[in-house]
């Protein structure tokens, strides 16, 4: 939570990139640079679709607008303001999604052959980073809630054990929170990591609001973590693909910038950057009020959905002080198995029959994403549609699979496995082999198999069931997931 002094408000009231763009637009500078659409003139169809306002600020880096690769003026000012707003030592504007923030964070923390401790239910971007840099994952198996079939947080004692067994690991990575809103005891994990000379990294793709709301779980920077990847575009309201990477005082900012520039575009979009700037200002000035309202909506939605019967919209009552150290109250996750429907089936019905698009459905649950833009009247539609789905489709739940956490057997590092000699086999013939690619349902994008893991019968059964229920599977070279690449 922020301490809002008058000085703070005066500073945060600025949005330097936004202001520079407004000024630049009024100058009516003649463009003999890229982008080639030249304020939209060269592409009238695009202009009419996106609007003149929008294409006229789709411009290139230049002196008055700074350059994201080496920011020294308005972008740098925006970064300093963002760092202040998030309570971080440094903030970096990211235009390649939170994926790019997570990758930069992992690439900063570890090098080839070094170990990093992390829960297995991480987003694919984390393991992608390991493929890129050659670091070796040490998985802490998350606890599982048997009824809901979801992975929980890491227990502190598990992290302690992993550190004992891998004293040379360089970092611990924590989901804060998971997709479902579950938080580990971040403060204790940060302390453990620091006591053993390790960095603590946080994937806060789903935790932007922790920095601005009241009585929410602790944010990574508040907990003393060294780096955090924050999806401003999720609950914070900026444009898709825009994100922040935050760093604490123990990390060398110049080195982080070098790492970011290894993979970052040199033509960063000003639409994305200005959206970060404006959204940061909005949250810094009004985040407390905004997220109080989102929370009220979430609590109302949970109460209404639970009164429909059959569904379980779970919330902070799950907190157990350890594997569910805290719960993000603005997450709206609903367990659907008790009406005899897989989450993914409810997800498909909501879209196809009721014109309601939710974030994802998995085997046993759905997640409706609530954020800065939600209103009660849409929540009423969602609740009524869920009530209708129950009335029309409720059936016996015998034979419904619950999501099981499958303990991975890591045989090779992700990088070794990804680049090793491999062969493609029909999926049903791969049992016992070592996979060289990812398999996951997207969303949520948490791998069922990651490169270097052994393929077991349980995993194959799960993949086939998820496919049959209609989960959209991604990762392998074969888009139909009928074949998998395995190590020779």
């Amino acid at each position, binding site marked *: 939570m922020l301490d809002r002094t008058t000085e703070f408000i005066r500073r945060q009231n600025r949005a330097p990139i936004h202001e520079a763009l407004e000024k630049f637009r009024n100058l009516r500078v003649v463009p003999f640079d890229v982008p080639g659409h030249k304020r939209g003139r060269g592409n009238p169809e695009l202009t009419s679709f996106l609007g003149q306002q929008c294409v006229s600020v789709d411009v290139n880096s230049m002196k008055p607008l700074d350059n994201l690769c080496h920011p020294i003026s308005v972008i740098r000012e925006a970064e300093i303001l963002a760092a202040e707003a998030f309570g971080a030592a440094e903030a970096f504007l990211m235009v390649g999604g939170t994926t790019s923030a997570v990758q930069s964070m992992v690439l900063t923390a570890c090098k080839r052959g070094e170990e990093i401790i992390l829960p297995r239910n991480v987003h694919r971007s984390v393991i992608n980073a390991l493929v890129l840099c050659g670091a070796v994952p040490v998985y802490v198996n998350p606890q599982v809630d048997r009824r809901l079939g979801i992975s929980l947080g890491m227990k502190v004692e598990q992290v302690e054990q992993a550190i004992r067994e891998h004293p040379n690991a360089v970092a611990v990575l924590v989901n804060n929170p998971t997709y479902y809103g579950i938080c580990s005891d971040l403060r204790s994990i940060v302390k453990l990591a620091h006591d053993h000379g390790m960095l603590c990294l946080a994937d806060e793709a789903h935790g932007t609001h922790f920095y601005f709301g009241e009585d929410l779980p602790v944010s990574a920077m508040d907990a003393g973590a060294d780096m955090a990847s924050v999806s401003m575009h999720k609950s914070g309201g900026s444009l898709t693909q825009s994100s922040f990477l935050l760093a604490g005082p123990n990390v060398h900012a110049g080195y982080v910038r070098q790492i970011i520039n290894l993979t970052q575009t040199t033509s960063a979009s000003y639409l994305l950057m200005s959206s970060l700037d404006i959204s940061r200002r909005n949250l810094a000035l009004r985040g407390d009020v905004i997220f109080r309202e989102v929370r009220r909506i979430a609590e109302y939605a949970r109460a209404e959905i639970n009164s429909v019967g059959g569904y379980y919209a779970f919330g902070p009552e799950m907190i157990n002080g350890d594997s569910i150290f805290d719960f993000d109250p603005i997450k709206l996750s609903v367990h659907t198995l008790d009406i005899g429907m897989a989450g993914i089936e409810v997800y498909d019905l909501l879209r196809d029959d*009721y014109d309601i698009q939710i974030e994802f459905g998995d085997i046993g649950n759905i997640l409706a994403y609530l954020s800065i833009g939600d209103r009660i009247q849409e929540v009423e539609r969602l609740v009524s*549609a869920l009530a209708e789905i129950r009335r029309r489709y409720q059936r016996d739940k015998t034979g419904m699979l619950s999501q099981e956490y499958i303990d991975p057997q890591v045989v090779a590092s992700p990088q070794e496995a990804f680049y090793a000699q491999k062969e493609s086999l029909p999926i049903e013939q791969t049992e016992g082999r070592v996979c060289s690619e990812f398999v996951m349902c997207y969303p949520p994008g948490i791998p069922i198999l990651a490169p270097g893991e052994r393929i077991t019968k349980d995993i194959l059964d799960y993949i086939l069931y998820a496919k049959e229920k209609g989960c959209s599977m991604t990762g392998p070279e074969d888009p139909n997931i009928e074949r998998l690449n395995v190590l020779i």
Partner: protein
Amino acid sequence: MDLWFSEKHTPDVKLSLRVERQLFSKQSDYQRIDVFESCEFGRILALDGNIMLTERDEFIYNEMIVHVPMAVHQGISRVLVIGAGDGGVVKELTRYSRIEHIDLVEMDPMVVDACRQYLPGNACQLDDERVHIHYENALKFIRYCENEYDLIIVDSNDPFGPSEGLFTKEFYGNCYKALKEDGIMVNQQGSPFYQQDADAMQRSHKRIANTFPICRVYQAHIPTYAAGYWLFGFASKKYHPIDDFDSKAWNDLHMRTRYYTTRLHKGAFYLPAFLEEMLEEVE
């Protein structure tokens, strides 16, 4: 003085009425509410700039949305009215002694207050003891109702504003559940003439047809609505709007009306070819 109120029926078509003066204008939590005194149409209620009713032609709408179902189902005693905070529908309903209970669910109390003050001709029966007003979101209200009503009247605004939720499949499904086994739902179904209205009309007809075994559309001419041409949906679990229509029973009530007659009742269900085609496309 030359003061005109205009409503755009499409980006390229507008209806303009000369206005004597503005009587009321306020932004509620949901919408902007205006009442005008017009030269030709008497007082006008406009929500977000769309005409909801005028004193001059409201009788067409209210008679057609009430008397058609009342003449089909002789056992109607419990009625749910959604929207209709102006009171016009309730005014027609309260003329039937067989109606024992009317729940009126209106989201916006300011509409009711404005109509009580400026449109007493419509709002005059809102204090009838059978009428129970609930200021609530209709989707929420109806979620909790099961097998309770003989008739539901959906008197909503157009589907592009705060009433959007009243044109959805989840809403119609919940209405089905709230009705008794021989219940009827009547809704304002918009206009089939201009493209955007026609698309919305088709979508809601499709959703109703997917929900109710009997689903017909009937029409009326309402000068101040888009294209002057308006549709109503008749959705029912048991009764057919013409096969089960009892003109004698209704005429025996000796109710004076200015638009509805039992002859017109039948005629209203005979639709022009283009409209039949549009409806069949989605049935």
